[in-house]
């Protein structure tokens, strides 16, 4: 028994006196807290009500209780009385109105007669305010029907009350999911090859063999990065194809997703973003690998970066189907890639933003190569075993 404790004590001492192992114990918890907090505030921003936003609600044949009930929601809204249902639906479709509520003619009388009148709530799922106000109003009317113990026929027709086109819905779902998924796959693809490269050579003692040859440090850095990038890009393409193929199933059925709506230009744009992003990831991970004492340490050091990439990926969902329209946002590495992908998939692609993204990423890649060459000249880092 005492030997069990002796072994256990030694193992625990090894763990709790090693700062790196201790950090690896704490890091996941910290990262989970950061990511979930970020995701929470993001979902709250996305689906919660916007106090500053004035929701435009169109109504037809509304009963007297409806305007009273609406006040209970606390939403900031404006009600427009409409007569032409089709015209009002068109406004929701065009996003000039957020919601259309159509009560059956003689709604109150039919209620009094004990009948079950119908209510139609038309909305546009690709318009976030429309989605928000739809949720609020649907709940409100449903509650009212429960309260008066008379069920209404609420959106009971066979048609879809979502006025977004199939293409718009498809683009929104793709825009919300694909940049995030792609960023993760691009990073993990680069991580699989880049973290091992230089730290592995340091660990195995092969880097010094290279450093006594007359090769320029910048050539060595560039040669390594190019080779790693090619491997990572190939891995990314395979991941991209896998994601595209699995996306319809991932998002619950092939009807919602139509990748065929994108033209060759979009795919070339995506390809360009993937290439510069993967090279950028490779450069960053190569620097981490060069700074690390071992492959294990390189993987540990790369973890926080991966979490940061995940956060950036999640941020691409915030647009709810659109991309950041401020030009400076495209100067921020990784974030610019995520926003560019959002723009491309949401069919709101701006060539200028694409150009800024590519050029700024190339500048960061060049800086990374310069730093890596400097690291190869640093005996403290190269002999830091």
């Amino acid at each position, binding site marked *: 028994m005492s030997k069990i404790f002796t072994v256990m004590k030694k193992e625990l001492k090894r763990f709790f006196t090693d700062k790196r192992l201790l950090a690896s114990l704490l890091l996941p918890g910290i990262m989970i807290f950061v990511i979930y907090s970020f995701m929470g505030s993001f979902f709250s921003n996305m689906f919660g009500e916007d106090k500053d936003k004035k929701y435009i609600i169109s109504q037809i044949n509304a009963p007297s209780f409806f305007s009273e009930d609406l006040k209970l929601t606390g939403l900031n809204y404006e009600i427009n009385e409409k007569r032409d249902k089709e015209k009002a639906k068109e406004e929701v479709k065009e996003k000039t109105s957020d919601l259309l509520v159509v009560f059956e003619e003689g709604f109150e009388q039919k209620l009094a007669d004990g009948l079950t009148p119908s209510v139609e709530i038309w909305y546009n799922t690709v318009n976030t305010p429309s989605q928000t106000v739809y949720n609020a109003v649907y709940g409100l009317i449903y509650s009212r029907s429960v309260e008066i113990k008379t069920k209404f026929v609420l959106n009971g027709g066979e048609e879809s009350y979502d006025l977004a086109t199939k293409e718009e819905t498809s683009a929104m779902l793709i825009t919300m999911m694909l940049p995030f998924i792609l960023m993760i796959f691009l990073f993990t693809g680069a991580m699989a090859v880049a973290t091992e490269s230089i730290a592995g050579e340091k660990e195995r003692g092969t880097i010094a063999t290279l450093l006594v*040859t007359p090769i320029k440090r910048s050539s060595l850095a560039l040669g390594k990065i190019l080779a790693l990038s090619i491997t990572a890009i190939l891995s990314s393409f395979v991941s991209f194809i896998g994601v595209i193929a699995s996306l319809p199933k991932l998002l619950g059925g092939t009807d919602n997703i139509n990748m065929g709506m994108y033209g060759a230009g979009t795919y070339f744009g995506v390809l360009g973003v993937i290439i510069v992003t993967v090279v950028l990831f490779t450069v960053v991970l190569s620097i981490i690998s060069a700074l690390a004492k071992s492959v294990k340490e390189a993987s540990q050091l790369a973890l926080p970066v991966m979490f940061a990439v995940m956060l950036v990926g999640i941020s691409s969902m915030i647009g709810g189907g659109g991309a950041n329209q401020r030009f400076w946002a495209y100067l921020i590495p990784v974030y610019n890639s995520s926003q560019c992908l959002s723009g491309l998939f949401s069919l709101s692609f701006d060539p200028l933003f694409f150009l800024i993204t590519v050029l700024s990423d190339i500048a960061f890649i060049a800086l990374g190569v310069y730093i890596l060459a400097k690291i190869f000249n640093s005996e403290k880092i190269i002999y830091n075993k």
Partner: protein
Amino acid sequence: MEEVLRVENLKKTFKLSRKQQQSEKTKDKYKVAVDGLSFSAYRGEIFGLLGPNGAGKTTTLRIISTLIKADEGDVTVDGESVRKNPDGVRKKIGFLTGELKLEDFFTSDYLYDYFSALHDVPKEFASDRKAKLFSRFGIEKFAHVKVGELSTGMKQKVSLVISIVHNPDFIIFDEPTNGLDVITAKTVTDFLVELKNQGKTIVISTHIFSLVEKICDRVGIVINGKMTLEGNLKQITAEKSLEEVFFDIYSKEAGNDE
């Protein structure tokens, strides 16, 4: 005698990590590895740096081979300064040490070509030289076997050959026979003498007296980062054996330290 290597007043200090302080049982934050070391090596000779572990031999060789930089002093190899033109020095030297490893994944044949290319060796010359060197060391039998599958002796032979792909006139070997079996060790030492006879200059570091006595023309005894004695081996060992000379100096240095 034509001077090929000049080491002048070399100084190198390392910052010790807490772990290193504990393992070396010292509270000093810095360790002087090389302390004003100077010596020269001449064309067509084997110069031996002799000293105990931790004397600063490997650090000196690393500085000469441009892997690390000296805090003070300079090294010139065939007129090229390691400070001013490290790339120029790298072209002129062949460096082999136990810490320089080859990638296990590749074959000796591939690695020879790879390092030849890094050294800008013309392809025809590289091919001829590879055939000669591989034959000299019997590498052709396992030239297409991955390095990871070779024995320690075979790996050392391959490393040796690869360190001189560019036919350098100045060769540095750190502990050339360390960890080798007697047969491979003899192959290596015989080859060093062969290179010397071709007019190459060789600097080795070692703590093995017999190796110095067997192959070196001149010797420098390094203790605590300082060159305590430098001279012709025959003259140094005229009255006493090298081992006796070394321990006389070592006792004095230890006394001085106390």
